[in-house]
């Protein structure tokens, strides 16, 4: 089955730059998948997204979206984009801005008023601000109107660059609901964000990009979790043995005790099987485990270089 987005050996160099922005990047994104991009600043995420949108031309390699080139006009009719740095015609009102993009998207004029109104309501922009010039919008309001234009025409491909940046908590929740709804409708989404917890909640897979290359792709739908540090807490009673024994128990199952204190420990495990064995052994040896949680999220570990393989 053909991929929704197929990237093969993508490289991109800017004319005056000493190092390439992207190097031999290959990835396959399935239809209906929410694919996240994370990485340090300047890693090449926005360049990658611009290549996917046909705004930048690859130096080498190929991008196919539904078998078409990214700048194919038919493809652009089913594509939505929310840029990271929202630069609109600032004299326009939010509503006029959406009217313009509704028109440029080739959507029927008869539906313009109802479509625009529905989209502004969907992103939670208060009607009192619909006729306010964009230059008076807060950062959160800009993001909302930007999201609304990206969603015009019910796109099948959505490219979102830092969608929740500057948005208040209710807006973050609204955006998450929108993404869940889009996911259910089978929209393929490429999402670039620094908000790791948000990515973990909505993405199926996340690529960690560094120095223009994909270093790792984390499958967040996989139940298999690799090496990590567990924070383990146990109940301390008169019957509980002293914490000194925890190190030995960890060694016996192949884990490492990084730090041990009365009632809690930081333990490094290699995989799920080792974590299960460790927790079972602790309970059997008289440490009543009441909590065991990973010290950091799965994506956070990518930045800590714990999981890069």
């Amino acid at each position, binding site marked *: 089955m053909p991929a929704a987005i197929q990237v093969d050996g993508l490289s991109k160099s*800017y004319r005056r730059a000493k190092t390439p*922005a992207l190097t031999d990047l290959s990835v396959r994104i399935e239809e209906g998948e929410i694919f996240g991009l994370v990485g340090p600043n300047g890693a*090449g995420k*926005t*360049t990658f997204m*611009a290549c996917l*949108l*046909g*705004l*930048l*031309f690859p130096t080498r390699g190929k991008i196919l979206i539904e078998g078409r080139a990214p700048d194919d*006009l*038919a493809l*652009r*009719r089913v*594509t939505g*984009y929310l*840029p*990271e*740095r929202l*630069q*609109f*015609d600032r*004299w*326009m009102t939010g509503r006029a801005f959406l*009217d*313009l*993009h509704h*028109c*440029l*998207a*080739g959507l029927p*004029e008869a539906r313009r008023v109802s479509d625009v109104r529905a989209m502004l309501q969907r992103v939670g922009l208060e009607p009192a601000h619909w006729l306010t010039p964009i230059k008076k919008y807060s950062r959160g309001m800009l993001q909302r109107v930007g999201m609304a*234009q990206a969603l015009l025409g019910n796109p099948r491909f959505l490219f979102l*660059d830092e969608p929740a940046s500057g948005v208040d908590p209710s807006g973050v929740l609204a955006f998450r609901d929108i993404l869940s709804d889009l996911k259910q409708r089978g929209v393929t989404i490429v999402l670039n964000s620094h908000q790791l917890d948000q990515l973990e909640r909505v993405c199926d897979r996340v690529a960690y990009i560094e120095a223009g290359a994909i270093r790792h792709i984390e499958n967040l739908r996989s139940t298999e979790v690799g090496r990590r540090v567990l924070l383990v807490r146990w109940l301390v009673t008169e019957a509980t043995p002293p914490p000194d024994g925890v190190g030995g128990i960890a060694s016996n199952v192949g884990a490492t005790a990084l730090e041990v204190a009365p009632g809690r420990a930081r333990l490094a495990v290699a995989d799920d099987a080792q974590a299960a064995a460790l927790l079972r052994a602790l309970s059997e040896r008289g440490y009543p485990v009441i909590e065991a949680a990973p010290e950091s999220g799965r994506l956070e570990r990518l930045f800590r270089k714990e999981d890069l393989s």
Partner: protein
Amino acid sequence: MSWSAFRALVAVTWRERLLRPFFGVLLVVFCATHVSVALASEGLHDPVFLLVLAIGGGSVGKDVSSGVLPLLFTRPLVRTHYVLTKWFSLASAVAVLSTLTLLLEAAVLAHRGMGLPGRDVAAAVFGSVSSAFGTTSVLLFLSVLVSGYSDVLLWIGLGFLPTLAHKYVPQRVAEQWKMLLNPALDWDATFRGPSIGWFRLFSYLSTVTLCLCLAALAANRKELSYASG
């Protein structure tokens, strides 16, 4: 491009360039000054030159530097159509304003008893409109190449080249260079002479066509990104 998208882009460009309060006041003052100058000199005073620079400058470059263009180009919009629409909307805005100013000048002169023959007024309007569409096409090409309003500076700089190099540039070349940067049709020289001035006519049409083709070519090859900029 659909008719509806064309109308929308023209309307947005007109609103952006003409209907913003500051710009609007400036244009009214500018046109009023021209009418005064026409009265003082007892003849028509064509405002097209400054109007082209004020309205036609930064046609595409401003959209690039402000970051509006990448978002527009993710829409199903042929870049060539966008460039041609920009040219038409800006040139037509200049043409309408310069025509109105010239007609106002003619009306005021007539009111003061210094009326000009209708043929002279028509010739001035025709020259002004042709200059609006011609010079805007040159500025449009430069605007695709450079960002912001740098096209205006570039255009002025290129205009000074023959003056700076007058020792090495023959007079004929300097005249052609001027016509290349400011293509316009002179009604009398082109149509009312003993025979039609085909050279002027084709020179004008070929310059405008060349500039529009080069602008479209450059726009299609242009890379746009928030990352690259």
